[in-house]
């Protein structure tokens, strides 16, 4: 494996993704990420002179909606997915100091 992921990197990525990993999981994740980066490095071997950077995997552009209200009130249904509910709002752990 050409790419070696350090303990600091996996720790940092874990914090960014809000993941708590056990020591075994960290080791596995380091290997997985190293392999992914090796795979991406392969692309660097290609000669891309004169190739336009790709913005999307599908050759599709300009998919739009007209500015017309199409959605009604589906609050009840949506709130069934909420971790908690009060006064028609999603209830989540306190975020203010």
């Amino acid at each position: 494996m050409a790419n070696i992921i350090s303990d600091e990197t996996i720790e940092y990525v874990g914090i960014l993704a809000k993941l708590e990993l056990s020591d075994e999981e960290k080791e596995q994740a380091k290997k997985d990420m190293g392999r992914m980066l090796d795979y991406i490095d392969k692309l660097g071997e290609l000669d891309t002179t004169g190739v336009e950077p790709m913005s999307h995997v599908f050759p599709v552009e300009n998919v739009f909606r007209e500015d017309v209200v199409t959605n009604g009130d589906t609050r009840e249904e949506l709130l069934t997915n909420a971790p908690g509910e009060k006064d028609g709002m999603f209830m989540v752990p306190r975020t203010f100091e």
Partner: protein
Amino acid sequence: MAREYETVIGLEVHVELATRTKIFCGCSTAFGGEPNTHTCPVCTGMPGSLPVLNKKVLEYAVAVGLAANCKITRYCKFDRKNYFYPDNPQNYQISQLYLPICRDGYVEITTESGTKKVGIHEIHMEEDAGKLIHDEWEDCTLVDYNRSGVPLIEIVSEPDMRNADEVIAYLEKLRLMIQYLGASDCKLQEGSMRADVNLSVREVGAKEFGTRTEMKNLNSFRAIARAIEGERERQIDLLEAGEAVVQETRRWDDGKGVSYTMRSKEDAQDYRYFPDPDLTPVHVSDEWLEQIRAAQPEFREEKMERYRREFDIPDYDIEIITGAKRMADLFEETVALGTEPKKVSNWLMGETMRLMKETETDAADLCFSPEHLAKLISLVDAKAITNTVAKEVFEVMFAKDIDPESYVEEKGLKTVNDEGELRSTVERVIAENPQSVSDYLGGKEKAIGFLVGQTMKAMKGKADPGSVNALLKELLSKLQA
């Protein structure tokens, strides 16, 4: 010798676009709905939902970019900005980092020290977040996603401003430009326009910029001016004391007139931007760009030019009237109904401005129609009502756009043209005020003013002051004889 400092300011301005629906779904953007009644799986970030771009958002963004002399990015796309916070249900905000829709523009601002250009670094499209409410009782946070997904453009200026006057002039310029386009109502107080101020100081003549801070929570022009002055002083004090300015985000407390650290560079976020695969790229063709360009409205400067040519009204009036889109619309539409321009202007500059100030009404919220203003003016012209009565009627019109003709009719406010009634009232006033009468007859011509006033009062304002004056003189001269 005391060192002299220069303030360097750049602005990030968020503007809520006036579309009917959100940027990526068909939910309404209307204000005042019950919590979460303007939501769907897309704007609440449910797994598997797919965003589709509102065409109008792109057109508004391009129109603002053209007005700000920007280069339009003909092939643009959206990126995900990743962060965790409950106001952002997807855990990422859809924004534009790599290919923003507009770049490299400028607007011209005028202050007392002259005219200058403020560079626009870029304008990009993004979605607004939901609203968080802290619940003391349950000790938790409640989330309303009605604003989640409301379209925004963020206008990023170059660090070209040097004082609060220039910042205010720049914001006024953007606000008018965007209001004229109809792309937003740009109300700072209500949050449809939000400005973050990036500020640093450096010694006059220095080449390098100083360390900057970003100031948030500025919701009036006054707060912005005060925050700029406060932050300039704070940074200079630090430098004078030999300390360093820390790059950080600060929150302005306008009530206390001080700012607090919100977050410093150390805990700055790593947003891990990447292209949003759910949205296809946008290609602005030549034809489409030309269509948008052709539909650009007449902006303030052009309007002022035209008013000078077409209407015989003072420059001062033109300046005030074109200072708000709604005002200019009211003026033009009332004049188009055949009313004399100066008379329309007088009503707008006088009573309208007075009542706006008194009731703290924004020009955008003026409710009376041009038809009704035209009718009111013609009632005065025809001497059907007096100026005093007209002002009373206008006050009602200002509050709830009533039809002045039927209102005057209903309330019996018409000027009394009944010669008999007027004559008997004047006779009575003469009889009741012997002192003023003898003063007048004794040569004090001014005493007639009091008698006119008394007559108008007795007639409840419904008499023509000119006729009253004439009649008084006629009857008094008979007494003299």
